[in-house]
């Protein structure tokens, strides 16, 4: 069947494009990860913030965090490699640990509590969703300019 074959090729092409789209949606999904070096209180106890924590997210530049500081980085994809070099107290030894964190697809922003992460607590404890606090929405609606002949740069 010649016609059948051509149709098959066409369907295959469409499927391939759809697969490509799906792949793009996964590998291109952008997230912002916030790394908190903060004391965390849980039902199981309190985990103190580190004296210092140097973090490196997916080969980005290293950020140095003191206690109660937050670092942030962006990345694409569904998991991220985070390398933390930390000193629990001023005099502790530097320790380095690397985590590969899988993040939920629907979260734009993810907060990771470093002490909880390193102490090996449950994912639901160290990872929380970052909800953007609505920034002062200007009361007046933005007027939409739909026809404009002014020439912008091209």
């Amino acid at each position: 069947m010649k016609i059948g074959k051509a149709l098959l090729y066409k369907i295959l092409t469409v499927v391939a494009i759809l697969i490509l789209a799906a792949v793009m949606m996964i590998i291109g999904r952008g997230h912002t990860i916030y790394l908190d070096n903060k004391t965390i209180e849980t039902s199981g106890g309190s985990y103190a913030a580190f004296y210092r924590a140097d973090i490196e997210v997916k080969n980005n530049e290293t950020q140095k965090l003191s206690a109660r500081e937050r670092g942030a980085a962006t990345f694409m994809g569904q998991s991220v490699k985070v390398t933390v070099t930390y000193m629990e107290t001023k005099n502790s030894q530097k320790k380095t640990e690397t985590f590969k964190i899988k993040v939920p697809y629907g979260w734009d922003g993810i907060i990771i509590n470093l002490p909880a992460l390193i102490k090996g607590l449950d994912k639901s404890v160290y990872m929380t969703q970052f909800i953007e606090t609505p920034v002062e929405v200007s009361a007046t609606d933005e007027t939409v300019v739909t026809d404009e002949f002014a020439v912008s740069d091209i």
Partner: protein
Amino acid sequence: MSNSKAPLLEMKNVSKSFFANNVLQDINFKLEEGEVLGLVGENGAGKSTLMKILFGMSVIKDTGGYGGSVLIDGEKVEFESPFDALKAGIGMVHQEFSLIPGFTATENILLNREPEKVSVVSKVFGSRLNTLDRKQMDEDAELSIEKLGVRIDKNMVVNQMPVGHKQFTEIARELSKKQLKILILDEPTAVLTEKEADALLASIRGMSKRGIAVIFITHRLQEILTVCDKVLVMRDGVIVKDVPAADTNVTEITKWMVGRENKGAAKAGAKRSRAAEKEDDVIMSIKRLWVDMPGETVRDVSLDIYNGEILGIGGLAGQGKLGIPNGIMGLYESGGKVIFRGKEIPLNNPRKCLDSQLAFVSEDRRGVGLLLDETLEWNIAFPAMQIQNKFLKSYLGGLIKWRDDKAIEEVTEKYIDSLQIKCSLGSKQLAKELSGGNQQKVCLAKAFALEPRFLFVSEPTRGIDVGAKALVLDALKQFNRESGVTVVMISSELEELRFICDRIAIVSGGKISGILPADRPSEEFGSLMISNVR
């Protein structure tokens, strides 16, 4: 095939009518493999209709099909479209070139039949994304040019070719079709030089040797005799003669083409009018006129027209007879000298002609003759209003020229009555809603309303039914007799001219090949018609 006795092509009792107007009747002929058939006849004899039937053109189907049967290899065929005809092995080269101007000969020869190479992409997106196999194309083109036997440059772009090469390219295209069994050539030599025409004739012989049957339509009778095996003469929609070419000659063929001794001639003699006695009273004198009208080029026409006569201008299509009135009336670019009633009329200026009381009824009724989207009133009154300020009311000392709709209506009603124009809504009907015959009457009324001294009427009976035809011709005659207006009527139908005219001038090759009184035998006109066909 086994069925060797059946002829390649056979037509049995083929007939065709357009709107109750029989254009073909009882056509029977056979064509064998490798035979060359010459088809001759005047314009309107039915040659092209016959070929249209054979080639499955959609006009035929749209106008109610045809009667009788067409058999190929003994089997009855009904072509839905030219593509079916092509599949069955019929090729046709039309008079108008059907070539893509910016393509090379090769590309044109293989147009839409290019050899292709399949690629991955085309598997997915369909065969139209196959790449062209240029090498194979060149080979195929080369092969068909070889078959043709005339050297043409296959890489030359069509719009740089001399006109003859375009013709050969078209023929080569047909030859490149592997299934080709019958080739129809419609006046192929009309655009060729003598040398090229000879080459084509040689090539036709070559085709015939290869088993391809050729139907050859031409006005150059000598060519028919040179190359054809058989001659088919048509007249008024019937085949009047079917003879081997070897058994006849040009004079004979001419006679068959035009011959109809009995009918109009005697009458013509009787009705001859005052023109004869006023031969020295020249109303218009045309000197060395040339007109650039595409397809109807006038090359060098000199002609005197007498006051009060009806002069007919006849000739085959494309020879320039239509160019004469169109050129004089300024619708196409022209040169030369036209003297009307002692004064020279400037050419290329329609207004000046109309001011000198010339009027023109164009052959292009819908294109030039009518305002299709306007009422009959407008159509009839417009030129008279514009040229002679008729039907106008003047205010403010002539500053404002107001259209007098009432006067217009009156004059329109008058012509509707006198010419029996059939219109359901009266003078307010739109011109496009009328039938062809009534539209023609409107065109005449428009010219009559100008009250001219001199009237050109071009193809007044083209495409209208018999009843209307007679009415139109009578109206013209009456107009000439009663108002003393000189009429020049241009028509492809010789009989019609002989019926109404005093003298008939025949145009051939853009020149006047002769002027004869209307009562001369028709073969004399026939030989004038083909005398310098080019």
